[in-house]
């Protein structure tokens, strides 16, 4: 077990700055399937390149790239924090022989939900409303300072959160994990992160897969609302079932492309039949 790393070697000033600026391009490939996963990988690409610079590191680099593409969805301003942690975990993964790489995505998954909850209400609910309030009161009179102050007031916290999020995320991840390894607690923490990750993914299943049936049918004088009946069996049974079936298909090595095609056909067919 070797766990001596010099932090500054890989996360040097240039790399840090690159990740910071790249964090603004997070949402570029946002889609329903992996959220901002591509942007998340794009963000830490310079770090992965520095971590595995040699051609012979190819297999380690490829698995880091594939890990980086996982589902990621968060209030953009707070993204640098979990990605800082993820970078330091990638670094530990290279340096520590028995590191469990699946814990990297478990940590990301358990952070993105609560951070989005905080971030949305802080940035959208609070800072934006304050900035807009000041902006509107000036703009009402046709003063150009209105829109300008609106942008400035919103974006100062936006930049600060990104900069310090990345900095502290990276430092926290590194220190915490190194200590845990020295104490021999890493296996326990990995397991706990996995549990927390699963709980958060469970909650996300309900909040992001919002499928509902609109099927209603009549039998004599009785009318049935299928969604109500399903809700009585188990609330959110459709999102849970669809997600678990998809998970099962992935375990059966069905490619994501085939699943997308299947979902396109199902969506259009079932909505044309007025079922979904």
């Amino acid at each position, binding site marked *: 077990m070797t766990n001596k790393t010099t932090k500054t070697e890989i996360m040097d000033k240039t790399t840090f700055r690159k990740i910071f600026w790249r964090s603004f391009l997070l949402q570029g490939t946002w889609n329903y399937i992996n959220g901002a996963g591509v942007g998340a990988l794009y963000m830490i690409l310079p770090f992965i390149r520095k971590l595995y610079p040699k051609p012979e590191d190819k297999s380690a680099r*490829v698995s880091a790239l594939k890990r980086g593409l996982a589902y990621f969805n968060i209030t953009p301003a707070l993204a640098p924090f979990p990605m800082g942690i993820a970078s330091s975990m990638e670094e530990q993964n290279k340096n520590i022989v028995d590191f469990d790489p699946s814990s990297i995505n478990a940590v990301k998954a358990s952070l993105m939900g*609560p951070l989005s909850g905080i971030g949305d209400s802080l940035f959208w609910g609070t800072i934006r409303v304050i900035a807009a309030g000041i902006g509107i009161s000036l703009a009402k009179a046709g003063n150009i300072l209105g829109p300008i102050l609106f942008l400035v007031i919103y974006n100062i916290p936006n930049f600060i959160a990104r900069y310090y999020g990345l900095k502290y995320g990276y430092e926290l991840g590194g220190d915490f994990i190194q200590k845990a390894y020295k104490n021999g607690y890493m296996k326990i923490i990995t397991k706990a992160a*996995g549990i927390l990750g699963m709980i958060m993914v*469970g909650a996300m299943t309900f*909040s992001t897969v*919002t499928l509902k049936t609109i099927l209603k049918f009549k039998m004599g004088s009785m009318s049935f609302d299928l969604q109500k009946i399903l809700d009585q069996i188990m609330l959110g049974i459709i999102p849970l079932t669809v997600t678990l079936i998809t998970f099962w298909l992935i375990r059966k090595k069905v490619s994501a492309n085939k699943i*997308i095609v299947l979902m396109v056909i199902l969506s259009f067919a079932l909505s044309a039949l007025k079922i979904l």
Partner: protein
Amino acid sequence: MLVPALWVALIMFVGNFSDCGMSDPMIRRPLVMSMLVGLALGDLKTGIIMGASLEVIFLGISGIGGAMPSDSMTGSIFGTAFAILNHQGVAVALSLAVPISLLAVFVNQLVIFIRGLLLSTFEKYAEEDKSKSIERLHYLSIFGGPLVYALIGFLGIYLGSGSISALVKAIPPVVMNGLTVLGQMLPALGIALLLNMIYEKGNMLYLLLGFVLSSYLKLPIIAVALIGIILAFILASIDKNILEVKNMKTPKAKAVSEDNTNNSLEEDFFND
């Protein structure tokens, strides 16, 4: 109408680009967009004032009585543009912006879907260790959406609200509904892929726990996270005790971890 159409196209581009290429620094909000439209169409002051009233409307502080555009960015750009070009009031100008913003919402759904289709290519690049290609495709996708928005911006002014309205009516409802349902179904794939990465035997139950906390108990995500942290912490301390008992039984292991025995997990957790 050619010059104003080009200006509006540029502003639509900037607005949408600020969302996907700059992580939404609020440039696409009515306050800023309307100001830019005013600047481009030669009536800065009206633009700024329109921006203030549209911001109030889209923040949900005040209603306007009548149809609201479904997309605040397209709605405020076209609302301001029509108000300046046709000398109309806010309400009339906004109702003219409705069909165009419907079109923008529809096209945006298509763009998001196409980005999803790019994922398999991204995965292929990752598999083949082509990180440069990942970056290039990401850039391409960042510019794709704004270019489509620019096109809508151009057509909206050049053809006028009436023709766009006819165009939107020509989109069959089956396609609209299908896309909406698809948008609700596709996240299941993302969640399942994530699940596949962090799944371990025996922890499927925790997925169900999180699901139930969120569905039946309607807990906000932060409450779910706190419960999850507490539970994970309890389970970790149990494991830690077991580990320590094991270490006591095997003297060799004890010697290794001797210097840490009085360092409990809790202390470490909070010290960090």
